């Protein structure tokens, strides 16, 4: 059993598990942090961005004015942003049989894997994962395509040149593998390969293994996966949450008794308590609005935004924010808000019960009805006529490199009355803000990450007790910035197996058993004999048929009739040669009784020697040796076949025949 690790990002994993005869990809997350090296894509012409000076090395020997721009001491690539893809050289992607998706954030690289690679397999995901994942992909494509940039910068990627660039560009890895965003056509093609599954539904893969998604409590339709054969069980834990938010709670008990548990997707903010952050978000928001400023919340169009809106729904009245407009701007804003209301079976119990009442599960419906929350596909069109300040705007992309958020950053960045509140933990907020410097607006970092923290995960692992744990190497040591916090790492016994990008791990357990079916008529013909109380054995002579990874023992076909009959001809394979099997022996030869028997048969001069494994009997008169050992008996007798046969028969008297 092997694990190929194609991504080193702990929360955007992409691993391939080779288990029995199957090749299963576990998630295909897309690391979008690479876009932080690029200049933002403004929706309307930005004089500030267009006037940024091009970069020339200090000694003037290197001039990349057209590709690289300088802003507040940092250098950015002036090109269509590119993403860092999962590793594609480690194994042949066309050999992947299935891809299991655990949540919509972990499928963003899907088109890169399924398209143009020869992939012919199936992708399994839950319905909300597929639908919301599609929205996020559509949004990403839309963000990129509506601000087309003809230029594609490549010179800076030259190894020699990159080495001379200032950081962090200099330190970016595998820049040659970075790719531009996929097209909508590729998205559609990739998503057409998805087959929907429900929680706890068992899916057979070629009869060899069974996979099954379990609720992971992180987002709508998010799942962990169980991959098991009859005798082995591998659990794949991706983004999971034990907090009571909108999704169905996490199914923990089904993870019990795993041989291997692959653990990914823990919180990226182990020291930030989501409740505290939510409170922080609300108080900063209220503080800004009261002072007459605007609030910008760069966020994804699905996920935490539902919780933010729910929290604000309760907070608006108490903070006297009733008249402040809330805008949600995204190409998929409408679909996202509406989809969330219809996935009743994927919601937490509390919200599920609301489905049976005349009220929607999420309170954002009420905010929309009362005109407190308005949503628009973009800043163009209706929004511009209805836009009122001070207001709160939720929009993407959280990297601040593309999407409508770029416009608001340009618009509001100059006033210290305004605040940008970061809630998504995926990007460093300081890096995100770098191309907007100098910035007067206030910046607040309230990352809300509801995924498991180290305390919760160690409790979970104690509960489910996997034999081995495999995890990203980041989880095996405290974070760099808090090296004294030994509680912010996994401490397990045996220690977890760490992986990094491009690791290939031999998972530390051996398959020892295989299930074989036996046909009833064959079973009927068996003659079991009891070797010890409660244990019976029988010999089986049969034909083993293996098909679709299922093994069946069938009766040995009888020899074909000598004369051809007139019955319909059947295609028969050549019957295997049948030989009467030798009887199997079991039991042990008791020394005293055996010596007595030998004496009865006239063999009296026996010298017994004790060895490590048993005894050696030296029949001195006959010059013969009998070795009695735990797992065998040998008679060493030269040129005296009758004696050997006699001795053999004497030994056999003490053994059971099957």
């Amino acid at each position: 059993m092997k694990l190929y690790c194609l991504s080193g990002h702990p929360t955007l994993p992409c691993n391939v598990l080779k288990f029995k005869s199957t090749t299963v990809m576990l998630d295909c997350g897309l690391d979008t942090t690479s876009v932080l090296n690029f200049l933002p894509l403004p929706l309307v012409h930005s004089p500030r961005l267009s006037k940024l000076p091009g970069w020339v090395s200090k000694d003037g020997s290197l001039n990349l004015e057209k590709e690289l721009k300088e802003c507040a001491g940092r250098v950015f690539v002036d090109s269509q942003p590119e993403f860092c893809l999962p590793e594609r050289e480690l194994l042949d992607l066309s050999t992947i049989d299935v891809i299991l998706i655990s949540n919509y954030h972990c499928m963003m690289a899907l088109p890169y894997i399924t398209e143009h690679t020869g992939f012919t397999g199936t992708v399994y995901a839950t319905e909300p994962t597929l639908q919301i994942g599609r929205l996020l992909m559509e949004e990403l494509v839309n963000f990129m395509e509506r601000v087309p940039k003809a230029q594609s910068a490549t010179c800076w990627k030259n190894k020699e040149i990159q080495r001379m660039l200032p950081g962090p560009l200099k330190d970016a890895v595998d820049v040659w593998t970075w790719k531009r965003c996929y097209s909508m056509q590729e998205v559609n093609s990739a998503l057409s390969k998805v087959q929907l599954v429900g929680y706890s539904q068992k899916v057979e893969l070629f009869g060899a293994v069974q996979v099954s998604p379990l609720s992971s409590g992180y987002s709508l339709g998010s799942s962990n996966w169980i991959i098991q054969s009859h005798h082995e069980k591998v659990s794949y834990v991706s983004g999971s949450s034990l907090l009571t938010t909108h999704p169905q709670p996490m199914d923990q008990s089904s993870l019990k008794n795993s041989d291997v548990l692959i653990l990914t997707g823990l919180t990226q903010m182990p020291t930030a308590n989501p409740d505290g952050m939510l409170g922080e978000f609300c108080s900063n928001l209220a503080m800004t609005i009261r002072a007459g400023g605007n609030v910008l919340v760069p966020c994804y169009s699905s996920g935490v935004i539902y919780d933010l809106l729910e929290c604000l729904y309760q907070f608006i009245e108490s903070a006297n924010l009733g008249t402040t407009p809330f805008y949600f701007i995204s190409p998929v804003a409408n679909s996202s808000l509406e989809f969330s209301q219809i996935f009743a079976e994927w919601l937490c119990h509390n919200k599920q019960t609301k489905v049976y009442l005349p009220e929607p599960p999420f309170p954002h419906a009420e905010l929309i009805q009362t005109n407190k929350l308005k949503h628009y596909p973009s800043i163009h069109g209706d929004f511009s006529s209805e836009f009122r300040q001070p207001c709160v705007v939720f929009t993407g992309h959280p990297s601040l490199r593309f999407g409508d958020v770029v416009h608001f950053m340009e618009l509001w960045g100059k006033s210290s009355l305004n605040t940008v509140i970061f809630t998504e933990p995926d990007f460093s907020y300081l890096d995100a803000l770098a191309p907007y410097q100098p910035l007067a607006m206030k910046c607040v970092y309230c990352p809300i990450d509801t995924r498991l923290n180290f305390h919760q995960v160690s409790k979970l692992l104690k509960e489910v007790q996997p034999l081995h744990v495999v995890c990203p190497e980041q989880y095996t040591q405290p974070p760099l910035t808090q090296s004294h916090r030994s509680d912010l790492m996994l401490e397990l016994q045996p220690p977890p197996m760490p992986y990094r990008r491009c690791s290939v791990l031999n998972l530390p357990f051996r398959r020892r058993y295989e299930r074989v079916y036996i046909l009833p008529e064959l079973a009927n013909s068996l003659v079991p004999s009891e070797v010890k109380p409660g244990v019976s054995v029988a010999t089986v002579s049969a034909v083993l048929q293996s098909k679709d990874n299922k093994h069946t023992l069938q009766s040995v076909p009888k020899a074909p009739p000598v004369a051809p009959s007139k019955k319909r001809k059947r295609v028969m394979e050549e019957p295997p040669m049948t030989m009467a099997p030798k009887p199997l022996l079991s039991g042990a030869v008791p020394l005293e009784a055996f010596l007595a028997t030998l004496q009865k048969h006239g063999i009296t001069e026996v010298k017994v020697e004790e060895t490590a494994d048993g005894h050696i009997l030296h029949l001195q008169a006959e010059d013969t040796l009998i070795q009695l050992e735990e797992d065998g008996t040998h008679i060493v007798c030269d040129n005296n076949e009758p004696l050997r046969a006699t001795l053999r028969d004497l030994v056999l008297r003490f053994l059971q025949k099957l």
Partner: protein
Amino acid sequence: MDSQCVSILPRVCGVLLVSGSSLPDDTSLEKLLDWFTTVAQTGPSLLEACPCLVDFVSKVAFNYASGSSILSFTLKLTGLIGASEDGFKVLKECSVLKLVFNPQHWQEAGLWEDPCLRIGWIQGLKMILQHSEALSFFAQADLIEPLLQLQTDPSLFVASAANQTLAQVLLLCQSLSSVGHNGSKNRDLEHNSVSMETTQNYSGIITKVSEYLNKSVVLKEISQLPGSQQILRLLAMLLVRVGPPLRDTLLLAVMNSLEELVTTSCSQLTVPLLDVILAANSGLRDDCVPKQRLIRLLWAMLNMKKPDDVMQAAAAVLRSHQSDPALSAHSARVLLLPLDIVTGVSLLDENSTEGELRILITEQLKRKSCISMICVCLSNIPQITLMASDRLPCPQRLIVTAVLLLLRLCCVDSSSSSPGCVEVVRFITGNSKVQKCALEALLVLSKSPGVKMVLVEVFKVLTEYLNSPSSDPSVLQKSYQVVIKWVGVCPDLSCITDQLREGFIQAVRKRACDTRWEARDSTVEFLGHLVEVPSCWTFTEQETEPLDVLLGGRRFTVPLLKEALQDPESYVRASSISALAQTLAPSWQDGTALTQEQEDIVAQLQEVLFQDSEGFARRAAVKYFTAWFSACSSPSSCWLLMQSMPTVLSQGVADLDWEVKLHTLELAELLLDRAFPDPSPSHSYAVMSDQDHRLPIAGHPNSCCC
């Protein structure tokens, strides 16, 4: 009414006699007993008032069929009657006394098993033990034996009452003996001279008690633990209550046993044992032998094997203000050890003798139970700061540094690391219990000499706490209190830079918008309290208010408080009204012209009085006007105040909340005081109050509504 009660009492007694065990509820009996007590205390004698009671008592005593509650009641009643010497004589003459207080009598009847009866017996006995006659009876009837047996009764109520009664017996012995020795007069014993026989009785009782205590204090097996704890509690109580000669006798009697008990190192007995030792120690002269032995015992406890026990012992020693300097100094060192280890700040010198303890505590700090140990350490810092500076193991400034570092380690958002014990960080980070204890310690440490130098550090840490999203509301409240305290004791705030101030302002502003009402409430309260902190000096050497230095003055706080008037939580609205009153009080005193803002506030407050659904806010609104009226040097010249008064008064008295009414009447009283300053009332209908010629206010016994 009493005479009516007395007249029906014989019939009541008759009913009680025949009621047997059918009485469903004994509260009526308790009430009856209360009434008897009042009669006994106020009238000449209970028997004189209710002569039928003796008959009732004797009938019940011979009637086993009575229910246990009736019997218990009768025993207590007998005690009440026998508390006076006359009553005692009557009871003795009709031989009821001996029978009623004879445990054998009740045991034979099979009633002693009932704790209800035992408690009646004890309380009756306790009531009767008021005079020498009773004590003689107690000694002659050898009641000390059953009373001692009841000291560790399985029923806690019985055991506790037995403890109290035993103390009563000893106190009585003591007071009677002193009469015997000194010949001084005692109210109870005016006509008595204490006979030789009686003195022997007393000493017999004391000997028995001493023997009993000596025997019972030693813990023979673990199953006797509750009994041992009870005995130690009894001993501590006795040592506190009885005077010198008797206390010395008791102490000498139990000393060996105490020494033996200390060596058992049983954690459950540490606290009661310490109570005993400290109770014994408190009144002894330094040079007496028992004192030296007690000091040795305390040293032994400070050298026990379990760090928790040692910490508790050290804390107890410090709290008891021991006169032994070495002992207190060692206790302070022990208590500071966890702080030293956790923070790595060298509070204790290297050559210390507590090396082994250091290892034990370090081990304990790696476990979750470290929280309680650190909290014990922090909560005893106030005691340590009270010690003379030459006895302190380190300068107080160092303790402040260590507490500040600990606070940083506890803060979730801090990236501070400790040069001390690393393992402890996982337990204390974000732990609000430790945070509160540390803040409490910091509060006390503000008084330490020479710590003004660290004001900036303190301010930074507190701002960090106020800013941290993970801070619990109670931690925020404590942080605000510490700010007030430190700012109050630091006459020079010139070290507060603009950057620090800006950070602090942001934190306060954010907390005023917190989602948790407790946080908003504490913030609003803080804004009010800050106004009352005395003036300080800035770097320009100008006298200025801390409010101005920290928050930029009223132009910052008033808008925040006005926002808080709209808060959905009534506590916050009430606090904001009070804080506004505190904030505006100086301008009222100065007679500064009203601003539009103040006029708006008055309008809002009137709205609160009319419309607020919660009493807290309305009460605060009335008090606001009272504060305004009191602070205003010339209320009549303040048109807005005078204009608002009728509305406030008419609305306030009509309020359904009695406290609003009360505060309105106080305002009215103030108004009348100002209107009629002359002490002699000029109007014929005025009611004079008892002392200061002020008009009475509602709530006073002789109140008069005006």
